[in-house]
């Protein structure tokens, strides 16, 4: 089965075609590594927001500290949307450990230090 990828390693954006074991269209070696990862276990960093009890920042931005398997993105979103932050956590502090039973943690990308209720 033929499958086409746009390589996202550099701005060149090669169209890489995979046909069985044959990979073509890539202008450098990094395109092969990218496509192999995409074919086997694609992962993405998830960025979203979490509800807080603070009126100054009713939502606060968060991200996963590592890329998460792509197929878990929606499961992770539904877990994240159940959380409400009630402490003025600092940037980088963990909001959810082991998201979707992976080794990926959800961390704050903004500081809530000194916010008002």
């Amino acid at each position, binding site marked *: 089965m033929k499958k086409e990828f*746009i390589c996202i390693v550099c701005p060149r*954006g090669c169209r890489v075609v995979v046909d069985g074991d044959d990979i073509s269209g890539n202008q450098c070696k990094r395109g092969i590594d990218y496509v192999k990862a995409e074919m086997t276990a694609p992962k993405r960093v998830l960025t979203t927001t979490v509800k807080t009890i603070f009126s100054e*920042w009713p*939502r606060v931005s968060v991200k996963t500290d590592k890329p998460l398997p792509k197929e878990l993105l929606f499961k992770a*979103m539904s877990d994240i949307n159940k959380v409400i932050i009630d402490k003025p956590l600092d940037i980088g502090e963990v909001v959810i450990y082991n998201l979707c039973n992976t080794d990926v943690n959800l961390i704050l990308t903004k500081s809530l230090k000194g916010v008002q209720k």
Partner: protein
Amino acid sequence: MIDIVVIGAGAGGLAAAITAKEKNKKVLLIERESTLGGILNQCIHNGFGLEVFKEEYTGPEYAHRYIEKLISLKIDYLLDTTVTKLEKLSEKFIITMTSEEEGIKKIEAKSVILTSGCYERTRGHISMPGDRPKGVFNAGSAQRYLNINGYMVGKKVFILGSGDIGLIMARRMTLEGAEVLGVAEIMSYSNGLNRNIVQCLIDFDIPLFLSHTVTNVIADENNNLKEIIIQEVDNNFNPMINTEKHFFVDTLLLSIGLIPDITLLDELSVKVDPKTKSVEVNQAYETSVRGLFVSGNSLQVHDLVDNVTKESERAGLCAVEYLNKENNEAEEIRILAGSNIGYVTPQRLDFSWNSSLIISFRTNKKMEKAICKVIQDDKVVYKKRLMFLVPAEMETISFDYQILNRTSDIKVVLEELS
């Protein structure tokens, strides 16, 4: 009197204020919102800072680095304060500002840096036909409602314009449970980064309709958006018959371009460049009004925040140089946009400054390989090979301008190579 007033505390203003303060100048940063960081606060996705920090930050993280520095340097700043008027009387600026706490107040400064960012083009700018229902938003406004205030603007969404904000919002709305039916782009290619096409559209099977635009907007009896119609366009961007596609959506997001916000300069007689829709500047980012500097997205719309930071750091240094500079009439030449160039900035080169020359430009044509030449008196004074040029990506060149003569204008051209 304050040495340098910086207006707008987004990526540009933070960088300019920090740079000027590090040279021991008396700086005041003025921000109309209640927090520092500007639009970075709503750009919660990652991909910021690869050039400046060699790390991949989200928008709020990128802002945080500069806010911490601003605070550690004890730079004075005002929040919830809007500058309403900017005047220049002989050698000083008079800044009128208003805030709920202080009312209307005037302050004086020797120099001003405007880093007020840009605003979004609306449906009026593209004369979009059809009804005027609720449910039509600018993509950036919808991003703010969702990421800062926590409101979803709709459940079934179509997006016009494939710039990066549109692509980022397609993913963001999808992750929050909305159904994004498609993205239409009037050009035959996307104006967004390829990585965003992959991560925001292909990852979620959202179709991209190239060479298509919205040709009708239909409201229901309560004046809510009910349906949009898109059509394919020909080479002259005219819709073609029998290409209509119907989408039943409650939300249309517009990601159709940004315009530098220089409305504050209306009362000063600054020269404007119709190509950048901002002011003309020299290589020190100084406008035709001496001591008034403009940088960041209020000078030209950047693709990367890293470049906003770097440009505004240079503007900060130039404002410092201005404070000690003799105000002599200087030799000046113009920098012109030649073939295949959409715009250039700076538009003027003033030989009285010490600052280096960095020319930013955009191609107006997609090119695989090209050579960029700078020409003075029919002679090539500088050239550089460039790869993969697209109008969506800004290019920069830099060279020592002491090699130029001080009487003839220079022209930047792009020649396509096969």
